[in-house]
């Protein structure tokens, strides 16, 4: 390891030290239970907006979105769009009323709105479930980043992030992390944008990179020089796949005796089509000639809209293998320029129902964002409902500033580092792209900046999750269910103990998910949130007819059915389950929001109407507390 390689590590250490330092600094002001749970309800609009944005921009946003856009092109633009504009719904329907209700945690709202202690338990369950699904990818991101940068074992990065944040949260609670998260937003905004300006100056403009795909839609990225790349084995499936281009012959070399699991076609064969068998390597075992083949049915070429349907071989290795590509060869696992830059490409068209898939994805992201409990709880830290609305507006500005840069990384990656497609490493584009610079010193400084940004992402998101989950355990489970008579002091102690317990569990869960996909796990959290908390808050704030039975049924069924669908879909992808599903059913399972959210809302409305006599007697008063401006003087802190 030479001196330059240490630069990124120094950046990461500096970020970690700043996090601990700021945490200790902020902790001095954090004393009462109100400080720990809702930062004394005294966080100003600017600080809260920075802190919410800092907490929200997670590993998935920092590394995942850029990678997804590089991989799928236009289709993946819906991710940053949905992540950002979800806050508009939060602003229009939820932020103000939620703050005015004056609770400490989201389960407080659930119980207070329906006078139902049982419903609090349901709500706590969802806080923990969404929280842990969201925590696992943060931990995994931390483990992988330290692995890539330092060669540390996978568990080391997780242990560092887990320990630092658990320390901060246990010491200072919500007040202790607000300043840290706000600082981390600015660190992330700086880390995603500054390298982009330098890279654009070196590699050329953003619009041009997008436009060159549009100008040459039939082409695809090629290797500019001979490259030898490492491919994963079967244990990393489906990341071990090597699907060749259908545009021309690709010749690759790999060591003879390489352990190939199977060779199939890149395009899934459909019923009635003639089987295709590849034996490109038969004559010379260490040379493979991948040639595109026209798909036939009963000997006749299959046509779609007049064009021949062409496929190419797909190799899946059983064990890790090094493969050498010639200069000028098409990069495998990449679509044509046209499919990348135009809507309805590889992401949304994969099951043949691109419009359905696109709308369902948009609904999941928008409604999911508006239903994430660890974000919602931060709105309680504002002094009043008006400040909560202003905060949301500023969150949208800050998130827009961040997300507008993520597609630039994707477009630059496709144009200037297409080899990331070949071995399924597009997720690492924010680190790999600066690494590829000619000027190694500049490159390593930029890697340092993006790595520190990534670390800020794991830490700030995890700290928010930890506060939200510890709050749920200490306030809702201990303070409300187990020991309602607990004193302020006891609740505060419970918060600290809960933080340590959840911190340890999170580290443990992080160790289990090394081979999972980051965006997949976050997708689960969004799908559950969209079909559980979003309908609860929307109807709870605006429809007085909602009863606890309706709300609970909608949350439980909507949330769990969405989760079941998405998990089944994943098990089918990884071939743990092997039953046949139609493409439309597969689309609906993979992106359940388009039926999950309406189902949840319909259940809430239907069952509430059937149990009308259980509408709380003082519902008018509750609605007044939710909506009346503070100056009228109807609010009371739900919890003293």
């Amino acid at each position, binding site marked *: 390891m030479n001196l330059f390689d240490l630069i990124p590590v120094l950046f990461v250490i500096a970020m970690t030290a700043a996090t601990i330092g700021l945490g200790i600094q902020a902790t001095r002001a954090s004393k009462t239970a109100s400080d720990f749970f809702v930062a004394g309800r005294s966080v100003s609009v600017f600080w809260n907006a920075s802190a919410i944005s800092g907490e929200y921009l997670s590993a998935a946003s920092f590394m995942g979105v850029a990678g997804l856009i590089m991989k799928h092109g*236009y289709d993946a633009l819906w991710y940053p769009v949905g992540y950002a504009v979800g806050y508009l719904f939060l*602003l229009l329907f939820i932020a103000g009323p939620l703050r005015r209700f004056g609770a400490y945690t989201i389960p407080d709202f659930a119980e207070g709105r329906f006078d139902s202690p049982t419903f609090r338990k349901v709500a706590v369950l969802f806080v923990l479930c969404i929280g842990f699904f969201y925590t696992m990818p943060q931990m995994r991101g931390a483990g992988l980043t330290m692995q890539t940068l330092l060669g540390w074992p996978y568990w080391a990065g997780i242990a560092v992030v887990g320990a630092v944040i658990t320390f901060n949260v246990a010491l200072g609670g919500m007040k202790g992390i607000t300043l840290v998260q706000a600082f981390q937003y600015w660190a992330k905004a700086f880390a995603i944008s500054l390298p982009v300006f330098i890279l654009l100056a070196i590699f050329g403009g953003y619009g041009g990179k997008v436009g060159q795909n549009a100008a040459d839609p039939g082409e695809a990225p090629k290797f500019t020089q001979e490259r030898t790349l490492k491919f994963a084995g079967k244990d990393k499936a489906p990341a071990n796949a090597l699907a060749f281009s259908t545009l021309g012959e690709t010749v690759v070399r790999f060591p003879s005796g390489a352990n190939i699991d199977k060779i199939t076609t890149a395009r899934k064969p459909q019923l009635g089509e003639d089987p295709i068998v590849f034996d490109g390597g038969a004559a010379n075992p260490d040379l493979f000639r991948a040639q595109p083949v026209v798909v036939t049915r009963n000997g006749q070429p299959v046509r779609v809209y007049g064009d021949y349907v062409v496929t190419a071989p797909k190799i899946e290795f059983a064990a890790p293998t090094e493969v050498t590509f010639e200069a000028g060869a098409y990069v495998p696992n990449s679509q044509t320029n046209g499919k990348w830059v135009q809507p309805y490409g590889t992401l949304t068209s994969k099951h043949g129902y691109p419009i359905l898939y696109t709308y369902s994805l948009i609904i999941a992201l928008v409604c999911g964002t508006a239903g994430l409990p660890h974000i919602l709880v931060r709105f309680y830290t504002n002094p009043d409902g*008006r400040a909560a609305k202003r905060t949301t507006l500023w969150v949208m500005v800050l998130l827009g500033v961040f997300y507008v840069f993520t597609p630039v990384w994707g477009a630059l990656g496709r144009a200037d580092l297409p080899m990331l497609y070949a071995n399924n490493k597009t997720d690492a584009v924010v680190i790999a792209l600066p690494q590829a610079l000619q000027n190694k010193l500049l490159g390593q400084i930029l890697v340092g900046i993006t790595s520190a940004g990534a670390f800020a992402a794991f830490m700030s998101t995890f700290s928010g999750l930890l506060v939200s989950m510890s709050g749920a355990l200490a306030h809702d489970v201990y303070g409300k269910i187990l020991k309602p008579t607990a004193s302020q002091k006891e609740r505060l102690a419970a918060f600290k103990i809960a933080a340590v317990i959840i911190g340890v569990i999170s580290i443990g869960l992080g160790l289990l998910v090394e081979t999972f996909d980051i965006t997949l796990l976050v997708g689960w959290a969004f799908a559950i949130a969209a079909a559980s908390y979003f309908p609860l808050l929307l109807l709870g704030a605006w429809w007085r007819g909602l009863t606890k039975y309706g709300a609970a049924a909608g949350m439980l069924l909507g949330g769990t059915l969405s989760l079941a669908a998405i998990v089944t879909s994943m098990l089918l992808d990884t071939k743990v389950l092997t039953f046949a599903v139609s493409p439309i059913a597969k689309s609906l399972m993979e992106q359940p929001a388009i039926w999950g959210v309406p189902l949840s809302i319909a259940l809430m409305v239907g069952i509430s109407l059937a149990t009308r006599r259980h509408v709380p007697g003082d519902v008018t008063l509750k609605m007044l507390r939710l909506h009346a401006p503070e100056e009228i003087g109807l609010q009371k802190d739900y919890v003293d």
Partner: protein
Amino acid sequence: MAEFPDAAPAGHAPDHHETLAEHLTHEQQERLLHTVMSRQAALSLRVSAVFLLLLLGLPLANWLAPGAMNALAPGGFTWTWLLAGILVYPITTLLSAYFVRTSDRIEAELVAQGRGILHGDGESAAR
């Protein structure tokens, strides 16, 4: 002429906020709720309608008019990339800013009206 009936009797106006609302009759609560909710709800629905039209209209435009959406736009982008990749952020920010400004204005008026209902002050309640 006051639009709303008198609220809590004089001298009964509580010092502690949390008890204020409980002293209203059911009918007074309903009136107050209607006043504070209806205009806010109308504003939220109006802004969300514009927003949904834009957000859900974009995929539809991509499907129905791919030629125009994928045509070259200023800066070298395609039109649809320019919209979904860049312009979406300032557009939603403008919508939010409009909402927050209008909502603040409504609330300021509601405070005057609401106090009127609570204290039977005819002048500020009659609007």
